[in-house]
C-alpha cells in the first residue's frame, strides 16, 4: 500500500481482440447453421435452430480463441458465454410469462365491464362484453385482507418471540416454523378443509380460504420477520436497556420501529405468496359466479380460483377471461413487488 495507482486497472473490460473474436464467432456460427440447418439438412423448427446455433457458436468461439489464448482463458470465455445464455433463457422465460399473460388477456382487459361486472347469469361462452371478474377481485381482496389480519399479528409476534425472547422453546418453534415455510399449500388447504368444513361443519366460504392462507403465511412472516429483527443492531437494544427501559418498551419503541421496513417486506412477501394460492381456494371455497361480500356465508370466488375453473371449461372465451384474470392477478403481484422493492430501498438509503 505504498502508493495507489492513479487509475485502477480495469479487470472486466474486453479488448478489441476479444470483441472481434466474439462477434466473428456469432456471425460465423449463424451463417453455418443457417446454411446447414435451413438449406442443406432436412431439419426445421426454431428451437432446434437456436440450439444448433449455440453449439456451433461455442465451437467457433473456442476455435478462434485458441489462435492466441492459452487453455484456461478459452475455458473462461466459453463459461462466460454459457452463463450469459443461461441468464437470457431464464429472464426470457420470465418475460415471456408476463408478456404472454397480458397479451392473451388483452381482449378481455379492454372491456370495462370486465372490471365492473360479475359472472352471474353469464355463460362461459358469452362474448367478452358481458360479465366480468369483479366478484373474483373483490373475493381476493377480502380473503387476503382477512388472512393479513390473522397472519400479521401472529407472525410478527412469533418473530419477536424467536428473536427477542428466545430460549430453548423458541428453538423448537423456529425449527417447526422453518419446516413449515415449505409446507405444500395443498396440505394447508386440506387441513383447514377437514377441520373447519368437515368437522366443525362450516360451509365452504371465503373465511375458510383466509384461514388456510394465513396458515401458509404465518411461517413466512415469522421467518422473514425474524431475519429483519435480528439485523437490528444490538447496540440499540443495549442503549435502550441502559436507559432503564423494560424489555417490552425496548421491543416496542426501539426494535420494532427499526425493523419496520423489514417487517413490511416480510408481510408483502407472504401476501404475494398467499394471493396466488390456487389449491387452497380450490379446496376450501367454491367458485361462485356471483358477488359474495360476506366471507362467512356463501362460497367466494377469487382470482386464482376463477382462472383455474375458467381454464377447466376449455371454452376459448373462458380461457381469454382466465388470462384476463391472470393479468389482473399478475398486476397485483407486481404492485406488491414494487412496494417491497421501494420499502427495502428506503431502508438502504437511511443507513
Amino acid at each position, binding site marked *: 500500500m505504498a502508493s495507489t495507482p492513479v487509475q485502477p486497472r480495469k479487470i472486466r473490460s474486453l479488448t478489441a481482440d476479444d470483441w472481434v473474436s466474439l462477434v466473428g464467432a456469432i456471425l460465423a456460427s449463424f451463417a453455418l447453421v443457417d446454411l446447414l440447418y435451413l438449406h442443406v439438412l432436412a431439419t426445421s423448427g426454431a428451437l432446434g435452430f437456436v440450439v444448433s446455433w449455440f453449439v456451433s457458436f461455442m465451437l467457433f468461439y473456442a476455435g478462434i480463441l485458441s489462435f492466441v489464448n492459452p487453455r484456461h482463458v478459452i475455458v473462461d470465455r466459453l463459461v462466460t458465454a454459457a452463463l450469459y445464455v443461461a441468464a437470457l433463457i431464464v429472464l426470457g422465460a420470465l418475460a415471456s410469462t408476463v408478456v404472454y399473460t397480458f397479451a392473451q388477456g388483452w381482449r378481455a382487459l379492454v372491456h370495462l365491464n370486465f372490471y365492473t361486472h360479475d359472472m352471474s347469469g353469464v355463460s362461459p361462452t358469452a362474448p367478452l362484453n358481458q360479465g366480468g371478474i369483479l366478484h373474483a377481485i373483490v373475493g381476493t381482496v377480502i380473503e387476503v385482507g382477512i388472512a393479513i389480519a390473522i397472519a400479521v399479528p401472529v407472525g410478527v409476534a*412469533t418473530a419477536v418471540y424467536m428473536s427477542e425472547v428466545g430460549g430453548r422453546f423458541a428453538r423448537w418453534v423456529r425449527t417447526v416454523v422453518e419446516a413449515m415455510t*415449505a409446507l405444500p399449500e395443498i396440505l394447508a388447504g386440506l387441513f383447514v378443509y*377437514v377441520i373447519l368444513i368437515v368437522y366443525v361443519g362450516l360451509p365452504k366460504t371465503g373465511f375458510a380460504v383466509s384461514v388456510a392462507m394465513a396458515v401458509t403465511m404465518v411461517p413466512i412472516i415469522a421467518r422473514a420477520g425474524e431475519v429483519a429483527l435480528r439485523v437490528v443492531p444490538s447496540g440499540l437494544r443495549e442503549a435502550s436497556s441502559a436507559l432503564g427501559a423494560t424489555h417490552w418498551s425496548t421491543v416496542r419503541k426501539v426494535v420494532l420501529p427499526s425493523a419496520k421496513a423489514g417487517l413490511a417486506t416480510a408481510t408483502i412477501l407472504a401476501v404475494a405468496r398467499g394471493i396466488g394460492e390456487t389449491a387452497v381456494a380450490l379446496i376450501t371455497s367454491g367458485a361462485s359466479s356471483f358477488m359474495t361480500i360476506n366471507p362467512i356465508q356463501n362460497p367466494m370466488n377469487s382470482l386464482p380460483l376463477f*382462472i383455474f375453473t375458467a381454464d377447466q371449461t376449455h371454452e376459448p372465451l373462458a380461457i381469454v377471461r382466465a388470462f384476463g384474470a391472470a393479468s389482473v392477478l399478475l398486476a397485483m403481484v407486481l404492485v406488491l413487488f414494487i412496494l417491497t422493492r421501494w420499502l427495502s430501498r428506503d431502508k438502504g438509503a437511511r443507513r
Partner: protein
Amino acid sequence: MSTSASNTPTTLRSSSEPRLLEPGLERSDRIFHGLSTLTGAFVLLVTGGIGLFLGLQAIPTLRHYGLSFFTTVVWQPELDHIGIAAVLLGTLEVALVAMTLAFPLALMLALFISDYAPVKIKSYLVSAVDLMAAVPSIIYGLWGFFLLQPHAITLSRWLSQNFGWFPLFHVDTDPNAAVWQQSRYTSSVFIAGAAVSMMAIPLACAVMRAVFDQAPQGEREAAMALGGTRFGVVRTVVLPFARGGIIGGSMLALGRALGETAAVLIIISPAYEIKFRVLEAGTQTISALIAGNFGNATASQLSALMTAGFVLFLITLLVNTAAAVIIRRSRSGAGTDI
C-alpha cells in the same frame, strides 16, 4: 459491588441487603414474555399440528389397506382399490424433471449474477429473480400449457425419434409418422416439470446467489492476484465455498417442486400407471390427486387422500429439513428470504 446497590435509585432495598443480580422481570415484561411465548406455542401447535393431524387421519386408511396402500397402482375408490404407487412415482418424476431443468439454470444464473453480470444491472437481476418467485404458480401453469407446450412437444418428438431406445424418452406411438400424434406428447411429466421448474429456479437461485456473494473477498482477490481468470476464481474459491448453499438451495427448490399443485393440475392429464416414459402424455401427482378428488370424497376416501397428503408431507419435511441443515452447516450459512 453489593454495598453500592443503595446508590441506584430504583432499588428500594436497604443497603445492608445485597442487591439481587437477577431482579426478575417487570410486570409489563412478564406479560410480554408470556404473550409472545403463548403465540409461539400457538404457531407451533397449529403448524406442527398439521403433520400430526394428517398422521392421525392416516391411521384408519393404513389399517384398512395395510402395505398395499403403497404398492397399489390404481386409485379406484368405488372398487375399494386404492394405492399411491403410481402417484408417488409421478410426484417424484415431475419434481426430478423440474430439478434437472432448474438446477443448471439456477446455478448458472446465480453465478452470472454474483460474478459475471455488469455491476450496474446486478440489483435488477436480483429483483427479477425475486419477482419470478412471486409470480403465482397458476400463471406458470397457463404459460406452460398454452405457450410452452406447443413448442416443447416438438422437442419431445425429436427426443423420442432419436433417443427412443432409451426407456425414459420412449413414447408409445410412431414418432416418425408423417402426421404425428401430438396428443401422445402433450400433458406429460416433461411439460409439467418444465412449468414447475419456473418455480424452482428462483428459489434455488436466490439461495445460491446469496451464498456466492458471501464468498470471502480476500480469497477471490488472492486467486485473481495469482493470475486466475474469472472462471478460475469461481472454480477455486466461489464454488467450493458455496457447496453447502448449492446443495441446500437445490433441495429447498426440490421441496417446493414436490408439493406444487396448480401448475401441475392444469398441465397433466391424470393417468394411474407405473411408467418412466416422461415424454408421454399422462401422469398424476399427490397434490394434483388431492385437489382433483377431495370434492366428492366420502369419509374413508378423504382419509385415503389425507394419507397420501401425509406421505407428501413427510417427503417435503425430510427434504426441507435436510436442506436447512446443509445450508446451516455449510461455511456460509445463508438462508433465503422467502
